């Protein structure tokens, strides 16, 4: 195949899978094993994508994948001190903390969440749960998602959360994903979040790297199910160091009259950050809001691919991504909206705005709309601009120094997104990270 990278890592995964099939097929359910096998066939065919594939046109993965990686989970769990966890915590946010280290859930570092309608565990411990069986591996189109296919075939662990019928959790859940390793590592965490009918949850997921200098490649997949009348407020706060690379696939399925809001804030650090966020609106009267804010610096690459797929009538989706670009950073925004034939009376909006702080930064913005229904309201657009000189002069003329004036204007630019964040503590935390990121 021309459109794939076959390298030693590819061969390594082929070998891993064969070994795995021999060793662990007995310990996992037959169903799961079938899912893994079928996913692996897809990966074998797809390999790793090169830049000739439309979806990967702007990101050359070769240098990131040609390193030596350990692909099996490490036996020794790295020790994480409380300081590292404390750094990721959100000031004055009353919440439950759940901690994952290199994709593995650590109940001893996490808060217990009381209530029989809430189920939190590692995903490997959840394979016999009805919700796992009903939803796991059911939604992602693996035939065109190289990394999700690989993850499905070879994931080791991750988080499983189920909020049952009509349950409203009293506090938000803050999931802290910590990456820490002394060896080059390729990890594949897998998460499943199921929000039952009429249930409500706010979940914040923070990503950090703790003091490791080795290269780490994280191929993360999250599947999220939002049932009828359920509400999910979902936050991503993405950080890390430059040796950390993320492929981050989030697949959301929404049912009738549900609400899903995603707030994603990405900050300087991680060398490569690719987010695939797909939301399928599979029911009527669904509402989805996707808010994104990326502040890219250094030689960082931040790539956001989103798909909003309207299958049924009377749904509303709104997407707003704002980017602030420093140094020689590269950002990609590729947003696709599908309005299927049955999805009459759809409202679907999408916007991407970018503020360039450096002449060497690059943004590729590609909003796309594909409409097959005839009675819809849709719009999309993107802008790339610089500081408003008049505003900058106005602030300076009041005694505000250049740096601070620019910071104020960046906050103002980001405000359309940050003001939407319903939790004030999270809003303040993100504003603080913007300030730090500008330094």
């Amino acid at each position, binding site marked *: 195949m021309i459109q794939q990278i076959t390298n030693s890592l590819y061969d390594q995964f082929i070998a891993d899978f064969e070994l795995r099939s021999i060793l662990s097929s007995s310990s996992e359910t037959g169903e799961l094993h079938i899912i893994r096998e079928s996913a692996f066939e897809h990966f074998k065919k797809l390999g790793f994508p090169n830049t000739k594939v439309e979806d990967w046109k702007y990101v050359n993965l070769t240098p990131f994948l040609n390193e030596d990686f350990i692909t099996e989970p490490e036996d020794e769990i790295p020790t994480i001190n409380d300081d590292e966890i404390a750094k990721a915590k959100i000031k004055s946010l009353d919440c439950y903390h759940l901690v994952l280290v290199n994709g593995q859930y650590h109940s001893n570092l996490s808060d217990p969440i009381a209530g029989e309608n809430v189920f939190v565990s590692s995903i490997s411990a959840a394979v016999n749960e009805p919700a796992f069986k009903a939803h796991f591996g059911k939604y992602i189109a693996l035939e065109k998602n190289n990394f999700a296919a690989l993850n499905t075939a070879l994931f080791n662990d991750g988080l499983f959360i189920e909020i049952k019928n009509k349950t409203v959790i009293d506090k938000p859940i803050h999931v802290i994903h910590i990456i820490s390793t002394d060896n080059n590592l390729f990890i594949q965490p897998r998460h499943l979040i199921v929000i039952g009918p009429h249930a409500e949850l706010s979940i914040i997921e923070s990503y950090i790297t703790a003091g490791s200098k080795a290269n780490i490649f994280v191929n993360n997949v999250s599947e999220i199910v939002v049932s009828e009348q359920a509400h999910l407020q979902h936050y991503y706060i993405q950080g890390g160091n430059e040796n950390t690379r993320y492929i981050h696939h989030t697949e959301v399925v929404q049912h009738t009259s549900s609400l899903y809001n995603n707030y994603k804030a990405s900050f300087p650090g991680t060398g490569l950050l690719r987010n695939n966020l797909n939301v399928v609106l599979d029911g009527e009267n669904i509402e989805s809001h996707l808010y994104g804010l990326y502040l890219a610096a250094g030689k960082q690459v931040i790539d956001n691919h989103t798909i909003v797929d309207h299958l049924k009538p009377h749904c509303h989706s709104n997407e707003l991504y704002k980017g602030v670009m420093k140094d020689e950073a590269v950002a990609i925004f590729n947003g696709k909206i599908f309005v299927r034939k049955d999805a009459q009376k759809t409202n679907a909006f999408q916007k991407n705005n970018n503020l360039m702080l450096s002449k060497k930064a690059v943004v590729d913005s590609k909003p796309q709309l594909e409409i097959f229904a005839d009675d819809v309201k849709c719009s999309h657009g993107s802008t790339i601009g610089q500081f408003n000189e008049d505003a900058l002069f106005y602030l300076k*003329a009041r*005694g*505000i*120094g250049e740096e601070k004036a620019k910071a104020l204007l960046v906050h103002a630019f980001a405000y359309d997104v940050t003001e939407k964040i319903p939790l004030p503590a999270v809003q303040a935390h993100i504003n603080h990270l913007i300030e730090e990121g500008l330094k």
Partner: protein
Amino acid sequence: MISIKNLRASIEGKEILRGVNLEVKAGEIHAIMGPNGSGKSTLAAVLAGNENYEVTSGEVSFEGKNLLEMAPEIRAREGVFLAFQYPVEIPGVSNINFLRTAMNEIRTYRNLPTMESKEFLRLVKEKQKLVEFDAALTNRSLNEGFSGGEKKRNEIFQLAMLDPKLAVLDETDSGLDIDALRIVSKGVNKLRSEKNAFIIITHYQRLLDYIVPDYVHVLYNGQIAKTGGKDLALELEEKGYDWLKETSQEKELA
């Protein structure tokens, strides 16, 4: 307080100020009048440090320091304030946060401690009352949704808060109805003291009915063509700027 000598400035290669001379002492109010395009707003912009204008020659000394060498924010911290003809709307920057940042930057520069929230809010209240500016400022973006008149009054309110040594009012009266004009003028009259000075740039004599200047200068063709007392404004109102053209031509001929 400020001494402008033979100031020349241009924008995009076009010379607008062609040798302006002006002395302003503490406690004085100077009005600068003149027809459109005479360079009034350019003078204001150059004094505030707008980088779109290039100063080609001349000197400006403010309290003995070379103003032209200072960045715009340093000029503000030294005590120069420009009330903008067109105040900028900045969605996402709150009025209060903006003002507090400005105030603290200025205070830090002057080696004063930053102001406590409570004290700051008390001052906001006091000054709002002083300049009769009752628009809600908290939770509102800078100048966003303000009418033209409110924006101008916000400029005067900021002036009251920042308490500069020299305030330059650039056509603050334009676009104001008579009530707003009266309120703005009242504010300025309350703020004037023996320690500060005002340069009031205006197209019409109307404002000077309310704020009585010590001197009136007429800027024409990039130079101060005539200087007089407050009566000069009345004379201008009566005879129009055409009268100036004649005197200016005479001058050139001579």
